[in-house]
């Protein structure tokens, strides 16, 4: 048997707890040293107060009682004033934290106050770590953890030694016995006597284990971002369900599968800026070969710059006066690595750093990889125009008469067929690019209908030329491709642009939603006179019809989607806006909103108070009569009685109100017990055997009895199962012939 070691008395445990609490406070407030926050004076005050009160624990008893009454309102007022004056929330919160620590240092603490010290200290440590990311943080966090664990152990031991319901520290202005008799040298001696080197060694080993396991956990915690889906998604091959792709191939059958899932959601600060029919342009396809449109290597090399890694992209749009409209895009995963854009922009900002290539001259922004997660980006200063200036192409086209955009890579027969068609369109006249496009579109719409399942006529030669020469119906890609071939045959540079057109306004989330079914292809024809690419859409709503539409609120309301799917989409937008995309800017916006609400509410409150005072004055100024006086006296008496009754019976009222929450009917154990009772009842087990009676009794106790009187639920259910089986087997035996 071990030699009996002495034990710390309750007073000594209290002293140890007080010492550890003071030390933890100092550890926490000293983080200000390497935080760039203006709280040095406060740190000095807290340090002095914490050291003094820790070493002389009778000092808190000298704090006057009214200080404890006023402490909380004063601290809150200080924080509010601090926040108001400095308008920087984090330093204000740090100072608030330090004030709370100061108050906890200069008053006797109960258990919950001790726990508060740990929470407040952890906040300071974490803030310091996040702000500074220094190596000191790691050391401080380790020391803090060890100290906090020792503190928690002391709190538990004191709680155990005191027993339930007994807690010191409730009376703030009388020094407890342990504080009066505090002698730190004696405590150190006693600690030495009490300590067992083996237990200390085990404690040290366990703490080393804590550090090791923490390191392992740190390494093992999966590093996926909240907006990302799980890693399993990487194992799934994604299929693009929309008709959108980064190349267009024309065959005999070019069906497009309709997919109404959300492809893109857009938040816009000024929704009146939304075009009537927005074109979300993603990519241009300039090379046509073997019935396929694709981005040519030449254009890829010339137009796109080198790959960059950044969060900001500067566009070629010129800055305009006034606050620019901000567009926030949420591009769904698996769609494309080319980002949808409305046109040239001033500034594009990603939520996190991205690898990308920007083709400013062609107006295309390409990420290195197709994102597997939702990609959010914010664009400022879109230039919303139907024509897109391209000075580079203009100079190039002047130097070289033929560019790849004018190259018609078809056979001589197809060429001749296209020549005939162009002659039919132009009537032999020399037209400008815009006029030719208008006539060609009219010709195409006259000869072809619209269908999502078109059929390209069989035969020799290029399939797109065959379709253009036929009268078959087609979809956007066929119309766009045909217009490109006709324009090139007429001598105009042209290319296919792909992306999305249109969308709906979600009335619940106040955002614009573009679906995969909105995928679209159109033509861009170069106008040498204007030095710009003209957007020509053979399937566009006629300009005359567009002009009747306005960009007003009424037009947006007409396009508004208030279906159930829109409700679900609004949840998704909420998640993106408030959780996933919650960055510093969102935080500032939220704070600004809070500030605005606070200001407006305080103004309303002031007005309401002034109005009430005026009303009371006016009421008092009215002539008084006996009846009026009696009514007022009765009202005052009633209010006084109500207040008196509430104060006198406040505990009973509280108990009555709190009682409702104690008994929970949806307790799973009670539900299970109820089920077992029902099963036994359904079997009609005779209540004769002692075991059955006991099981039923225990089940009823689990179902209806107080929780403290429960037997082990699992064992009781097992016994009920056994009783049921025994009864069934007995019945089978009896019924057997």
């Amino acid at each position, binding site marked *: *048997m*071990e030699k*009996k070691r002495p*034990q710390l008395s309750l007073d000594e445990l209290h002293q140890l707890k007080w010492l550890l609490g003071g030390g933890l406070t100092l550890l926490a407030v000293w983080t200000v040293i390497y935080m760039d926050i203006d709280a040095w004076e406060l740190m000095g005050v807290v340090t002095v107060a914490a050291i003094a009160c820790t070493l002389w624990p009778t000092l808190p008893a000298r704090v006057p009682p009214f200080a404890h009454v006023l402490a909380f309102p004063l601290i809150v007022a200080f924080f509010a004033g601090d926040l108001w004056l400095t308008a920087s929330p984090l330093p204000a919160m740090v100072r608030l934290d330090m004030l709370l620590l100061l108050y906890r240092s200069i008053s006797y603490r109960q258990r919950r106050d001790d*726990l508060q010290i740990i*929470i407040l200290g*952890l906040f300071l*440590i*974490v803030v310091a*770590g*996040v702000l500074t*990311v220094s190596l000191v943080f*790691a050391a401080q*966090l380790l020391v803090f*953890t060890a100290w906090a*664990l020792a503190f*928690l*152990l002391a*709190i*538990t*031991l004191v*709680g*155990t*030694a005191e*027993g*339930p319901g007994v807690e010191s520290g409730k009376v703030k202005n009388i020094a407890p016995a342990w504080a009066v008799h505090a002698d730190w040298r004696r405590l150190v001696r006693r600690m030495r006597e009490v300590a*067992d080197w083996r*237990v200390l060694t*085990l404690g040290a080993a*366990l703490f080393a*284990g*804590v550090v090791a*396991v*923490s390191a392992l*956990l*740190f390494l093992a*915690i999966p*590093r*996926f*971002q*909240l907006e990302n889906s799980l890693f399993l998604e990487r194992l799934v091959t994604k299929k693009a369900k929309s008709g959108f792709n980064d190349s267009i191939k024309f065959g005999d059958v070019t069906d497009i599968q309709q997919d109404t899932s959300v492809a893109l959601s857009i938040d816009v600060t000024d929704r009146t800026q939304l075009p009537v029919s927005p074109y979300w342009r993603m990519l241009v396809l300039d090379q046509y070969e073997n019935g396929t449109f694709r981005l040519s290597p030449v254009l890829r090399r010339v137009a796109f710059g080198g790959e960059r890694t950044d969060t900001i992209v500067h566009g070629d749009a010129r800055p305009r006066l006034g606050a620019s409209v901000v567009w926030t895009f949420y591009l769904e995963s698996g769609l494309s690595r080319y980002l949808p854009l409305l046109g040239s922009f001033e500034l594009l900002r990603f939520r*996190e750093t991205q690898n990308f290539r920007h083709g400013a001259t062609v107006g295309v922004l390409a990420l290195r990889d197709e994102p597997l997660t939702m990609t959010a980006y914010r664009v400022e200063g879109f230039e919303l125009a139907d024509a897109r200036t391209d000075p580079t192409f203009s100079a190039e086209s002047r130097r070289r008469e033929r560019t790849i955009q004018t190259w018609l890579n078809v056979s001589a027969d197809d060429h001749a067929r296209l020549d005939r068609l162009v002659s039919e369109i132009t009537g032999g006249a020399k037209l400008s690019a815009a006029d030719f496009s208008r006539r060609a579109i009219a010709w195409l719409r006259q000869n072809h209908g619209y269908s999502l399942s078109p059929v390209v006529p069989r035969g020799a030669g290029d399939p797109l030329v065959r379709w253009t020469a036929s009268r078959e119906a087609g979809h956007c890609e066929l119309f766009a491709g045909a217009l490109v071939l006709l324009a090139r045959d007429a001598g105009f540079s042209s290319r296919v642009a792909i992306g999305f057109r249109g969308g709906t306004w979600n009335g619940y989330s106040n955002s614009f939603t573009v679906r995969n079914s909105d995928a679209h292809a159109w033509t861009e024809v170069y106008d040498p006179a204007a030095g710009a690419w003209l957007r020509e859409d053979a399937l566009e709503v006629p300009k005359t019809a567009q002009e009747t539409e306005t960009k007003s609120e009424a037009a947006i309301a007409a396009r508004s989607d208030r279906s159930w799917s829109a409700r679900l989409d609004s949840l998704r937008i909420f998640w993106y806006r408030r*959780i996933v995309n*919650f960055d510093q800017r969102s935080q500032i916006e939220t704070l600004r909103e809070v500030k605005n609400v606070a200001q407006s509410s305080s103004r309303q409150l002031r007005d309401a108070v002034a109005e009430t005072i005026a009303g009371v004055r006016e009421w008092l100024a009215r002539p008084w009569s006996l009846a009026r006086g009696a009514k007022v006296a009765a009202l005052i008496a009633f209010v006084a009685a109500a207040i008196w009754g509430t104060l006198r019976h406040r505990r009973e009222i509280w108990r009555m109100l709190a009682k409702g929450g104690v008994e929970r009917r949806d307790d799973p154990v009670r539900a299970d017990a109820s089920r077992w009772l029902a099963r036994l009842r359904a079997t009609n087990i005779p*209540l*004769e055997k002692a075991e059955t*009676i*006991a099981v*039923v*009794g225990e089940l009823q*106790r689990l*179902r*209806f*009895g*107080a929780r*403290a*009187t429960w037997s*082990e639920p*699992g*064992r009781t259910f097992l016994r009920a199962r056994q009783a049921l089986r025994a009864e069934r087997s007995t019945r089978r035996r009896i019924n057997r012939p």
Partner: protein
Amino acid sequence: MNARDLNAWSGPGLRGVRRRFTWNGLLWSLVWPQRSHRVLPTTAGLVLIGLAMGIGTAAYNSSSNILFITLSLLLTCLILSGVLSWLNLRGVAWRLRVTPPLRAGQEATVTLELRNGKKFLPTYGLWFELAARPIADARDQRPESTWTGRDLDVRKILAQTDAATQRGQLACRTRLDPGYESRLEWIFKPANRGALRVELASVGSLFPFGFLKKSIGTELRADVVVWPAPVEYRRHAVATARRPAGGEHVTRAGSGGDLLALRRYESGDSHRLIHWKASARTRTLLVRQFSAESAEGFSLWLRMDAEVWTKPEQFELLVSFCATLAEDLFRAGRLMSVALDDAPPLPVRRVGDLEAFLDQLAVVRPAKGNSSLASPSPRAIAKQNVMTFAPDGARGVAAYVDGKKAATA
């Protein structure tokens, strides 16, 4: 009393039931709580879990490794808490001791013995939930309303049972050093006579950091009998027992003339009482024991006809009155025999006989439909100085000796 249960040690440190150590088993026991083990987070634990979740969310939201480090440390602290709690309870065993006799209305002591069987680690901060509940007769546990009864009825029955259950909490406030034992005492007062089950409902601990409240359900219990409470009664002078001429010898040790038995010599015995012949024969010093000469002996005959004792409180008074008389008469050396209903009379010669009678009295109930009890049996009538009982008014009970009122309660 269930001696086997009382003497048995229980708990994680119980020797002889340890399974072979395997790392797999150890890990599994740390991850998956054993049967009857409950772990609930305390307020501090909930705060810690909430804090960990908040920091975790912030870490994922901001991809800040500082927050990931903090999250790792918080989670590890939770693990450490579980490991230390397991170490604290490891090797600890406990058992219950109930010291008889237990008497209704009088304080009884239940002793809980603790043992720390660990090598060098002490144990801190254990508490023990104890309960003493009456063991209802199986007949009482079969109410007609078991299946058909409404919730309210069952709740009422359970509330009555709960009201009869006494609960207590014992806490080990000091450190229990390795290899040491400790005793905790729970003092309670049984309210009624009858069979009583004293059980250790659970053992709990908040050690080490107060995050988790761990409790272990135990099946340690002891069934004991609570004797009837003593009552005040009044004797009547008229009821002086008949003294037969010449005295009557009773089979109890005393100072009469008849040899009752031989026993071993004890220090202080008179040398004149030594039986030399028997001592020589057995080579052990034996002394003569004579029978007591009693002329005032009584026989108690308790009849419990349900038709006569219709009021439960009056029946309880009867049982307590009978028990009190039996003890008083035995103490005065005047109790000859006892009989319950139509059972044969049992002679009361030693303390054990009286205790057996009190044990019987502790659990008696009114007998239904026994018409033969309506009148005393001829054999009992023939016997003199027989004390019987009858209701005395609406609430009282009277004791009669040979038909004459001897005492009332």
